[in-house]
């Protein structure tokens, strides 16, 4: 065996090192002592990991082609690591609480192993490795969701997550077995050569699609989302809503474009239906929520619809737009969750929208940052969200001919998505309205967030403001995706 091929798995290897050091540090220190150094240590390790991987890797493979990596996948892995870093930083305030402090190390290890699983999933070139990666990302995630296990909601959310995750995995592996029956191989490239549209392969593709649909929480596979997001600890919800979703969306995009290229007219129709449903239904439900975490759950379902919109274009531009969207979504959504979490800590654990009334009067900075993040999510310039949305729409209609049915529908779906941005702006503005316009008799008292929360918010806000206007971020992704 040629051991040098492990060098091609550099992102995974360096992540493994981070995991091991974290484990040793946790193992060697007393859990009863005040471990102030622990969180900075893990964050620095993660930062080092990002720095080592910021330059896109060359295309390479390992294990006889089961594992492949390329610049596009490399960039996405870096973005996922960045998201994880932000989550780690903002987790400090919550983790230093008495009931969680003793299991701080477990949290870090679980979160890093899910990231490792996602990296595997993104780089898979074989359905079995892909499935392994997916499971490796899912199982520790269930532990994370149930992390506050003595809180009723968290345990319930964990149970719901496990049940739906196993169910979707089951459906997916059934789909994969059908595809194996039709093609006789599970290597992506070999499959692409032999696959043709037949009832068997279409059924396989649909089952496979629904399995990943659960992970991305697209309608109609979204039923677990609201409950799990509400019950999970807020930091975990943030992680679940961006990093896990981004990895799954990228993988789905890559597999659809790589393996199912000969069946493009089938999956495009599938995507049209799922996208329109996801965006519209999630937006309609979001309007009625009063619990902010449930609200963000529906918001994230509709954002997932926008992410998938990029795939419709079926070109290198799609990969660029999708990756860019994921990056912007990571910073904007994590910013919102950092604020929700910070307010939750200072408000006896309530996340009701009413408690945000008059927030600008008492905590102007927090309210202002929240507004920026919400505007970015709603697609308002000059914040990054508008750029990412525009590029996704551009990718979706690229090459579409309005005279053909499919091309006409591409414009139609983009139109529906655009009408939905207005709807989504309405509910994002509801929060802005609560903070700036509504008056409250007993508003939240003025408080100082912990340094770690401030740091996480600063990173996110820099991202929201700079990643759009400064085009080099987009260029970085574009170069990688077109390589």
């Amino acid at each position, binding site marked *: 065996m040629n051991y040098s091929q492990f060098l091609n798995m550099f992102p995974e290897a360096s992540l493994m090192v981070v995991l091991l050091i974290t484990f040793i540090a946790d193992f060697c220190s007393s859990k009863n002592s005040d471990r102030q150094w622990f969180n900075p240590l893990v964050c620095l390790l993660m930062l080092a990991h990002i720095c080592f991987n910021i330059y896109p890797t060359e295309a390479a493979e390992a294990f006889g082609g089961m594992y492949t990596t390329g610049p596009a996948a490399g960039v996405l892995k870096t973005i996922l690591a960045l998201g994880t870093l932000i989550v780690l930083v903002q987790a400090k305030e919550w983790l230093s609480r008495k009931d969680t402090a003793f299991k701080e190390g477990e949290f870090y290890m679980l979160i890093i192993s899910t990231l490792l699983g996602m990296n595997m999933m993104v780089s898979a070139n074989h359905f079995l490795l892909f499935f392994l990666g997916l499971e490796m990302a899912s199982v520790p995630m269930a532990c994370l969701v149930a992390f506050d296990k003595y809180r009723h909601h968290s345990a319930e959310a964990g149970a719901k997550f496990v049940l739906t995750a196993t169910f979707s995995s089951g459906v997916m592996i059934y789909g994969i077995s059908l595809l194996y029956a039709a093609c006789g191989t599970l290597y992506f490239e070999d499959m692409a050569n032999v696959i043709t549209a037949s009832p068997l392969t279409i059924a396989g593709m649909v089952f496979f699609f629904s399995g990943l649909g659960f992970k991305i929480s697209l309608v109609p596979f979204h039923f677990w989302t609201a409950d799990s997001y509400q019950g999970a600890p807020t930091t975990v919800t943030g992680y679940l809503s961006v990093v896990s979703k981004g990895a799954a969306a990228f993988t789905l995009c890559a597999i659809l474009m790589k393996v199912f290229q000969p069946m493009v007219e089938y999956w495009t129709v599938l995507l049209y239906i799922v996208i329109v449903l996801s965006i519209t239904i999630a937006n309609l439900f979001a309007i009625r929520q009063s619990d902010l975490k449930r609200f963000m759950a529906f918001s994230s379902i509709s954002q997932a619809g926008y992410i998938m919109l990029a795939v419709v274009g079926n070109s290198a531009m799609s990969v*660029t737009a999708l990756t860019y969207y994921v990056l912007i979504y990571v910073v904007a959504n994590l910013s919102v969750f950092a604020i929700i979490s910070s307010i939750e800590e200072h408000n006896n654990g309530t996340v009701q929208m009413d408690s945000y009334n008059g927030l600008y009067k008492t905590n102007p900075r927090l309210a202002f940052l929240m507004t920026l993040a919400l505007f970015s999510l709603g697609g308002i310039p000059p914040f990054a969200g508008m750029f990412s949305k525009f*590029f996704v*729409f551009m990718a979706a209609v690229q090459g579409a001919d309005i005279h053909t049915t499919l091309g006409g529908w591409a414009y139609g779906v983009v139109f529906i998505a655009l009408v939905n*941005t*207005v709807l989504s702006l309405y509910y994002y503005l509801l929060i802005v309205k609560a903070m700036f*316009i509504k008056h409250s008799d007993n508003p939240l008292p003025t408080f100082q967030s912990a340094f770690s929360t401030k740091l996480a918010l600063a990173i996110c806000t820099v991202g929201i403001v700079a990643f759009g206007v400064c085009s080099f971020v987009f260029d970085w992704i*574009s170069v990688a995706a*077109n390589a």
Partner: protein
Amino acid sequence: MNLSIFVIVPLLMLLGLWLARNDKQVRGVMVAGASVLLALSIYLVFAFLEARETMPADQAPMLFTYPCVPWFEPLHINYSLGVDGISVVMILLTSIIVFTGTFASWQMEPMKKEYFLWFTLLSIGVYGFFISIDMFTMFMFYEVALIPMYLLIGVWGSGAKEYSAMKLTLMLMGGSALLIIGILGIYFYSGAQTFEILDIAHHTNGAHAIPESVQNVFFPLLFIGFGILGALFPFHTWSPDGHASAPTAVSMLHAGVLMKLGGYGCFRIAMFLLPAATHGFWIKVFLVLTTISIVYGALSACVQTDLKYINAYSSVSHCGMVLFALCMMTETAATGAILQMLSHGLMTALFFAVIGMIYHQAGTRDVRYLGGLMKIIPFLSVGYAVAGLANLGLPGFSGFVAEMTIFVGSFQNADTFHRVCTIIACTSIVVTAVYILRCVGKILYQKVPNPKLEKLHDATWDERIAVAGLIACVAGLGMFPLWAEKIIMDAVGPIFSVIM
């Protein structure tokens, strides 16, 4: 001159406002910034005129094009700037309104600092929109101008402010949803691989590169998208509520400048880049709709009792005239449309300024509870009378010049359909006189209905600056319209050579 300065100065103002510690510094920053912007715009007009002298009339429709900076290179998005005659007068208009608006909101309470921050952000959007010639950049600035409105109306407004703010924001964002589709359609079908307006227009001799059937799909999307901001019937309903609830300076800027973005966009993007569609079916539909806007707006204004609602419906009518003139498709009418944009911007700002000041004093805007103001607050009353007279098109004020040009241009179309529309639209002149004179008579000259009104104070010095400045502009444009007409015709010509 580098046009980016019109974005950089407001950005510096934002920085200054952010650093300002007290009200005095906030006002200082605003006055300094607004004065610099006004001076720059006046300089731009003169520089433009001078540069125009030296080149033949049919050449170079755009001037001062700043070498375009590639922005998102893989997508061919550039940050490219340029102005022609239309943008120059619009920039001047914006500077005048921002300057007078600053003085009109001198006593804004509470949260003066935040108010001016959003106000300046709004002006960045407007300036950016007028100076950019890349559709993406233009669209970005367009949306930058929309969103501060929500907070400006929602926090500092009056009446049903939350409802109005939400309605306005959502309707305008709905318009920009249509715009994105239209812009993407033009980008992908033009074959020019660019968002730059001039390159698309001149690529293979105008937009013939885009098949007519495709043009007919995207033209209505773009025209309605911009038309929503230009108060095109039946998408105008945000405008009366929004203007009535907004604080004074925001009404001024919004009715005065922001609504003009609609007409400007219809002309510069929808008509210029999709010329084949302007000879088709949709332009006739829009002509009918704009005729309805004009008459409906004027008639609605007749039955309102709130001064701001009267002026808001009057704005619907007058902005309808802008789009109406554009749909007439003659060069004279289009020149009139741009003149009307300028003139309406000035006079409606004057109107809203005076109404806001009266409201601030009297605590009511209801026509039924006001009267005899001419004796009590003569300065504001004269301002109101001047605004009214300009609005109904009295010769000597800007309204007359603009409306005259529009109707003359409209009558150049010889067929029955256009003639009938023109005649119907002309009736609005009479209706306008009815509601203006009724209002002026009631609130300025009749008996004082409430003894409390006797105690009103006339305008303070900051309010006087705003009102006097605007009166000077309205009268100035009315008496010396030729320079503006010259600059505008200069720009309309090259665009029409592509459209016709």
